[in-house]
């Protein structure tokens, strides 16, 4: 009786460990780099003269971020995620944070899971009015004066949502609400890494706000790192 109890408790513990998303450290990894071919559009500097409190935070003008490139044709701000075949998982307890600072959205592209708590902060000395232009999820827009508490929201359905500020027309970002916790946003070097994948066959998709999406299939058998590169086609206009 006693042994049975201990055994069942141990079994429960093991099972719950296997099911928790924290399990990411073990398992396979998909890693690689996103690059572009062709000529990307020339990004223009943003003139924030009308908002001096923001303008003074940028000694050199901030560039438009709709295409972020790095050396070697690297493409930044690309969302890479498991679009099919991924293990189902509950939204992570950790909340995603989207900051308004220097009249910019930080990060420019935020990947989060459907149902995950999202905190939107205003770290500027000016009022913002955040307006995510969602079509599948309910649309809203909220004013956030300086010093106001963070806005807490969650999106229930997967969707790529453009975000704008109703006060500062140049402010622009994206919420990438995904069905998976396995996602990454590339840095300026275009690299990404999706870890903790149990063995299986996956579809991995890369999304860039102007150049669209590209998908590839990959099979993970154990703890190996599968290399996967994406090359998106850039257009100048």
């Amino acid at each position, binding site marked *: 009786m006693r042994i049975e109890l201990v055994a069942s408790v141990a079994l429960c513990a093991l099972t719950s460990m296997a099911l928790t998303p924290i399990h990411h450290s073990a398992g396979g990894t998909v890693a690689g780099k996103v690059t572009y071919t062709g000529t990307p559009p020339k990004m223009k500097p943003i003139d924030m003269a009308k908002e001096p409190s923001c303008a003074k935070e940028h000694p050199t003008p901030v560039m*438009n971020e709709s295409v972020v490139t790095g050396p070697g044709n690297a493409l930044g701000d690309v969302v890479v995620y498991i679009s099919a075949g991924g293990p189902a998982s509950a939204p992570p307890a950790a909340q995603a944070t989207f900051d308004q600072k220097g009249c910019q959205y930080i990060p420019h592209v935020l990947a989060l899971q459907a149902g995950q708590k999202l905190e939107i902060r205003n770290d500027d000395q000016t*009022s913002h009015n955040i307006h995510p232009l969602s079509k599948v999820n309910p649309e809203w827009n909220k004013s956030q004066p300086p010093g106001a508490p963070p806005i807490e929201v969650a999106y229930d359905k997967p969707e790529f949502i453009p975000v704008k500020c109703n006060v500062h027309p140049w402010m622009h970002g994206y919420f990438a609400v995904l069905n998976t916790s396995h996602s990454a946003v590339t840095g300026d070097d275009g690299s990404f890494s999706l870890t903790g994948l149990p063995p299986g066959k996956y579809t991995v998709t890369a999304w860039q706000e102007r150049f669209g999406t590209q998908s590839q299939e990959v099979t993970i058998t154990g703890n190996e790192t599968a290399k996967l590169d994406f090359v998106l086609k850039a257009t100048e206009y």
Partner: protein
Amino acid sequence: MGKSFAIAVSVIALLSAGVFAARIWWLPPDISALGLRIDGQLAETMVFTGVLFVAAQLALAAFVWQSTGRTATIRLFPGGPMPLVGAATAIVGLEVLALVFIGTRVWSQAFLTPAPANAIHIDVQAGQFAFYFRYAGPDGKFGVPHPELINEGESNFFGLDPKNDTAARDDIVSASLVVPVDQPVLLTMHSKDVGHSLFIPQLRLQQDFVPGLIIPVHFTATGITKTEIVCTQLCGLGHYNMRAYFEVLSKDDFAKWLTDQAGQ
């Protein structure tokens, strides 16, 4: 009681007229080629209306002073009230008409005369809650705006189509209105959404944006300055925040600024 009322009326009337007569609160120094005439017209209107205002208030005070303590009987003006009201309306009407006719000379210079042929053309778009100014760029031609292509996130504030429209590729879009000194400037003003207004007190220029209309306005700035343009038509939540810089540069500095912008 009646006498102190008469004194109060006189003091208020004289003080408020005095503020204008002494030009304590006046417009900022003008830097517009038409500014002197506009200010002249403004002063003329002030004198016309100011003299009548003070005279009417002092007459009121005098009657109150004189009637204090007396048992008043209300008597009709000889001939009844109609001729009096009629005469007053005619006098005031003639005064307003006279001001309009005199003022039209200046007004037509600013609004009814086309811009000189050598005017620099700047396309102005107002939208919630910012102004954007577009220059034709090195090719001297404006691209055609397509409102459905407006994408502020990609800095395409005017809805240009550089893919298919080569004239649009070098258009310069600025968040500040920058003009050269002593050179006529033509603004074509249009709104992306609701009504807005462009007010530059130094130019004695104020013009509303009306959705659906392209409104031409021209001016010549005669002094080098950097000042603020504010929206003076309540346009929504961020109205208080809708502003831009107005900068008048020397001809050389303007040419350099334009070259710098074209290179971006």
